[in-house]
């Protein structure tokens, strides 16, 4: 465990080298929130859609913009470059678990983003746009739990893509596809309750909602208290399914690993 935490610390301190770019990241987050809030302001008031107030949607936009910074997005790129350079062979002979190494290294990046991007962005957004408090302490606890689930699912999806890339050798294409699915079904901009009914039905059957809609809706208390347990069970089932798939693919991938670099 201690070894893995060292990877987390290492990844964190690597990121520290680019501290000066923090300002640009904060500006980037601010811009994204500003755009989303402006769009919500442009339409709310003209149409009464229920469950949508400008305060709700501002908070929803802020939470999701910050969540995006925390998710473990770099996994498939990392595996891809060690596949192409061949350095994966030396990673594999080390007496550590490669997936756990990836997870803990990714978490180092997330912790860095939390401290240097998410928290300052949250404060700026709070001062400039205003953020609603969590619906209740119970919902706050549910939100934090959902954040951890989001981290787990984002890691597993990224890892899944990198394992599929053992066969296709094109992780960019697979990442693009995953990105497209996330754009639609995570609900990180347009919440699921505003989807057309069929699309909402499909989105609720998929794991992508846990990377946008679920955490923010729990924070806001849009998901009723009695449904929280059901949502969490669904999340745990998804994590279990994804874990089984990646375990199985990992065994297959290792046995057909072709080193490209020399």
């Amino acid at each position, binding site marked *: 465990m201690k070894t893995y935490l060292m990877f987390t610390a290492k990844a964190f301190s690597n990121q520290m080298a680019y501290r000066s770019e923090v300002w640009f990241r904060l500006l*980037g987050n601010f811009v994204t929130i500003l755009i989303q809030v402006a*769009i919500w302001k442009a339409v709310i008031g003209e149409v009464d859609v229920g469950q949508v107030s400008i305060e709700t949607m501002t908070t929803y936009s802020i939470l999701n913009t910050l969540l995006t910074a925390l998710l473990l997005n770099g996994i498939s790129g990392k595996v891809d470059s060690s596949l192409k350079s061949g350095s994966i062979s030396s990673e594999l002979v080390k007496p550590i678990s490669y997936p756990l190494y990836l997870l803990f290294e990714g978490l180092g990046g997330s912790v860095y983003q939390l401290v240097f991007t998410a928290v300052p962005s949250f404060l700026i957004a709070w001062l400039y746009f205003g953020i609603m408090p969590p619906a209740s302490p119970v919902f706050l606890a549910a939100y934090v739990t959902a954040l951890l689930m989001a981290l787990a699912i984002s890691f597993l999806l990224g890892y899944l893509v990198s394992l599929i890339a053992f066969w296709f050798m094109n992780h960019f294409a697979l990442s693009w596809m995953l990105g497209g699915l996330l754009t639609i079904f995570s609900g990180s901009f347009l919440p699921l309750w505003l989807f057309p009914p069929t699309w909402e039905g499909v989105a609720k059957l998929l794991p992508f909602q846990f990377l946008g809609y679920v955490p923010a809706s729990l924070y806001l208390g849009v998901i009723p208290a009695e449904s929280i347990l059901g949502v969490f069970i669904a999340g745990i089932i998804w994590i279990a399914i994804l874990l089984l798939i990646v375990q199985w693919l990992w065994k297959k991938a290792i046995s057909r690993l072709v080193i490209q670099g020399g």
Partner: protein
Amino acid sequence: MTLPLFFKLVRLLMKERMEYRADFLLSIFAQIIAYGGDYIVIWMFIQRFDTIAGWNWPEIAFLYSIGLFTYALGASFSFVQMRDLEEQVKNGTFDSLLIKPVNPYLFLISRGFNLGYIAHILISASVMIWAIIQLDLKWTLINVLYLILSVISGALINAGIMTLIGSVSFVWVRSGFLFNLFFRLKEFISFPLPVFGALIQILLTIVMPLAFVNYYPAAFLLSKDILGLPTWSMWFVPVVGPFCYWVAYRAWMGGVNKYQSAGG
């Protein structure tokens, strides 16, 4: 870098891509899904709210498609080239470009000419044509000419901004974070400009003229009222792009002259 030489290069790049045909097709398919996702989210949004700032779905689809189409055109000869400049400056491999007896800028953008944007072009052109049919626009010769010139100008604005960001590598070495910021800012023009406050509208018109990429041309073609501007002001649109690109090119060449290799 003459034109026939450029076309020869494109033919070779095409051949190179087709060596890995399945891979290339997979990439095209993936990017169509990715951008399809953007279209679907905006479509779902408008399903719920009917219009955004008075623009309905075909109008927004038209606006968004001009943005994507011009970005793809501009990026094909600037994004990857300028993004990788950082790495080349860091490793010192950029130096080898300077000893070639050609204009380093033209060589860099032509050598890296990126056919990977074909998917962007396919999806944005298809949606644009669909939107044009839905909108029942009057296609006079002037309008057609105006759309073509606007698209060229929009591509040059995108390419100009990316070239300018690339030239930052000569001074600071790192420039990747500016590309990230650019992609965030580009989101502004996925929606009609009046959605945003006066300050943003001014910034997107004068400081970073992204509004000229798609909003102004689309608004003129769709006969939307822009702050009561007279019709002749629509002809600013085709001029802004070449001007931006020229400024960026000068800055880039200026950067090269100041450049001192970081690699050893």
